[in-house]
């Protein structure tokens, strides 16, 4: 399985660490809603098909990535920064060139 890291390009899965279900919503830090916290900490989706996942490129740039992976075929249909923007990547590239 290859994951195409937006920083580093296609890399073997051995360089990555699975960091869990990417669908989880963390409640607001001060929230006292235990049901919401419980769902966040313990509930996981387990679809047969496309799944939103968080992977960290721990053996590379260490960025966390939002990966859409098909759990039946291991096909990866999308990879994006978990931070949600590409400014970091752009900045990284600019610094690299400077």
């Amino acid at each position, binding site marked *: 399985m290859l994951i195409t890291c937006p920083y580093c390009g296609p890399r073997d899965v051995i360089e990555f660490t699975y960091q869990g279900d990417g669908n989880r919503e963390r409640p607001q830090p001060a929230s006292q809603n235990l049901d919401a916290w419980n769902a*966040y*900490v313990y509930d996981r989706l387990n679809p047969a098909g496309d799944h939103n996942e968080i992977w960290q490129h721990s053996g590379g740039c*260490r960025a966390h990535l939002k990966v859409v992976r098909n759990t039946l075929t291991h096909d990866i249909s999308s990879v994006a*920064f*978990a931070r949600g923007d590409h400014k970091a990547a752009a900045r990284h590239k600019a610094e690299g060139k400077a």
Partner: protein
Amino acid sequence: MSPRRTDAGGRIDRLRTIRFTFDGAPYTGHAGDTLASALLANGVTLFGRSFKYHRPRGVLTSGVEEPNALVTVLRGEVREPNIAATMVEIYDGLTVVSQNRFPSLSWDVSAVNQLGGKLLSAGFYYKTFMGPAIGPLKSTRFWMFCEHFIRRAAGLGRAGTAPDTARYERMNAFCDVLVVGSGPAGLMAARAAADQGARVILSELEPHFGGSANWSGETIDGMPGADWAARAAGQLEGYDNVRLLPRTTVWGYYDGNTLAALERVTDHKERPGKGEPRHRYWTIRAKSVVLATGSFERPLVFPGNDRPGVMLAHAAERYANEYGVLPGNRIAIFTNNDSAYRSALALKNAGAAIVAIVDVRPELSSEMRELADEAEAKILAGHAVVATEGGKALSGIKVQRFDMVNGALAGDPRSIQADCLLMSGGWSPTIHLASQAGAKAEWNAARQAFLPPKPTQQWIGAGAFTGSFSTAEAIAEGRAAGLSAAGGTGAPTALPVVEAAPGDPDPAPVFEIKADGKSFVDFQHDVTAEDVRLAHREGFVSVEHLKRYTTLGMATDQGKNSNIPGLAIMAEALGKPIPEVGTTRFRPPFSAVSIGSLAAERFGDLRPERLTPMHDWHVANGATMYSAGLWYRPMIYGHPGETIEQAYVREARATRESAGIVDVSTLGKIAVQGPDAAEFLDRVYTNMFSTLAVGKARYGLMLREDGLAFDDGTTWRLGDQDFLMTTTTANAGKVMQHLEYFLDVIWPELKVHVTSVTDEWAGAAIGGPKARAILAACITGTAVDNATLPFMGIVHGKISGVPVMICRLSFSGEMAFEVYSGAGYGTHVWEALIEAGKPFGLVTYGLEALGTMRIEKGHVTGAEIDGRTTARDLHLDWMLSKKKPFIGSAMMDREGLIAPGRLELVGLISLDNQPLNGGAHIVEALDEANPHDSIGHITACCYSPALGKYIALALVKDGKARRGTRAHISDPLRNRFGPVEIVSNHFFDPDGSRMHG
């Protein structure tokens, strides 16, 4: 010249003689021979004994699918069993022995097994040895008695015990187009893709490129097929964008178009060239794959079909055309299809007499009749072979009239003298890789074969693999597949012209001739047609169950010959069409893979060793090193004659009396920097860090999201936006990942950068009543008095000219200082501190004394923060801020985490003055014979020089409330029982007067 070697023909080099031995007897062959072709040329017919019945077996095939002629190859002390003789290229000095025979191949005592008839039929083991003991010959106990003898009698080659001295190598390759198989289809595909500029890898499991072109006797582009193939391969060699891999079996097709291949680099050589590995394990990531893997000819199932001298028709054709070997002089042929007629003609042309072509079909085409005439062979249409005769070699066959509509035999059996019988039961495309790649094969009634499924990954099929069995089709499909795989269209140019014998690719739907005698379906596992029917009678309906019950297709050849005939016989028994019975999915590997290649370059202990900057000093100064995770740390600095306990007690006592120094470089260190660093730490730690003054440190506790304790350590505020976090040695990596996750995924708006700086700093902790005086004696640039350096204060200065950062904090309970310098200066600063400490009686101490002093102080480590304890359990609730939320704050007060009855941290004192053991259980009432009702367990223990007692830390149910009460150690494993007193975990100096000084 050997008795069966033809005078001319084939690609062997008759001028080069090669000497080898088989079962100790010397033989010769020629360069280009396989072990099988060389032995056949010498007139050898007996290659091995069968798995269960020890029946004599010859060679059935000429390739990778060989089930019978399995041998053990010896190289020095190393023996490699179960190698197909058809795949061994001979070299001078090759040493081979046969298998599964005792005492010798030609005289085998276990051959009596075959007289037993039903004795070893399907399910024999289950029926005889499983279940309760009823009578003397049943039950698993009886199995234990018989196992030794049966394992010796039934089996294949014996594995060696000598270590494998060969070297194996691993390669990763990327290409646009991987072509698997180099027959006419594969060669055309590789060329077409290469001409488009694609990066191409062409793999071939045989030593020579060309596949069937090497032996079909067909003409391509006006030249013999073998010459055409050699020219095509030679041209590909000239391409910079093509890599040719001969002797390379692609054996696995995995997700993402990743394929695994085994290259046998030097198995065919007397000795490897310089730097050459024995095998090379390739991981190939291909954008597109062309599967041109050809097809396997199927045996027919009839009584005696396993006798030496019975062979697949194309295999004999190949021995004659490619190796110049005649497998017999009087050859009979038994077929259900046209392809065997070409084989007949090839053997006739090579010098054999074709005594009969026995064809199950009543009507034959005029083309086949012409081919038979040309081969001077008599056709027996509508006939079948019902028996074979002979012992270790074939002497003749019996044939009978056969009605292929109902399988009935009629008329009297007729004998025909022959020393070789060729059979052809049709062809099965080699769809293994396609099946591995994901989809289910589809049955084609005309071809009587499973054809490849629709691709589920990026592959294209070509040639016989797709069921297109003629060379002309293979050439056309190969080029089209190569073009398409490379993403090209290409102008249509003329294809090479093929001159080939005619033939209908569709066989008659006949798999078995039912007559008296053992008819083998799976040759390697000795599974007969009757075994398959027995399984059906006993209620097995699924193919998967059939396989497991009879072991059909489960030998090392993975049923390459037997899958389809076995399925057909099962389908007939069930009264269902073959596609409804189904086929099993193929799994990797396609053929046997050396374990050495799988382990290549990745064996032994692969973990890195982490050494602190002062490591060499410790070793040179008498430290006994101890591995803690990846780190090596001094355990004790023992004096001659000291026990471990004596050494750590001396070190700890000296530290509390004067001063001690310990290497703390292994602590995890993370630089937390940025405008939001303080806010981030407030969220990460249970206590406040935004209120921490610059130049001060604070002890911090982290929880997990679920509210349980995670890690602890001190964090130092070096600047307004600059913190240095320390973690426990064991959790450094986990804490780093934890921080990165929250910054990247949960709070991307926080402007914080975290950097692991563990390896940038060397750390030495110096503690004890004299510690400050020692520091004062060697530090410049700063004072270290109480006013300048209060408890948890930080100063910068120089020691022996090197900049250092000093924080006054204490793990030992003494007044202590952590001195950090750049890692490269670690030993320099360490030695300066040792030197300055000499007049004060400074000692070096190791992990044992460190642990002892921390137990005396009741500090927690990973043994107590074990993933099950909460802050309250560890009496750290004073660190849980109520002014802010933090990671874990919402979940830490859940019912189960605050309920009574939880394990809480306590101290234990041994009341019988005997040592305590880590992991020992604690009980209220002692019952040595029947230990039960644990109320907790010991997490850490030592002899305390400060208390003069054996003490321990423990997690005990409602521990706080039990302080001052007695309990017992119950440790039946180590036979340690005894009374203890439960006390506070703060054994020594509970108010901290010593460290505050």
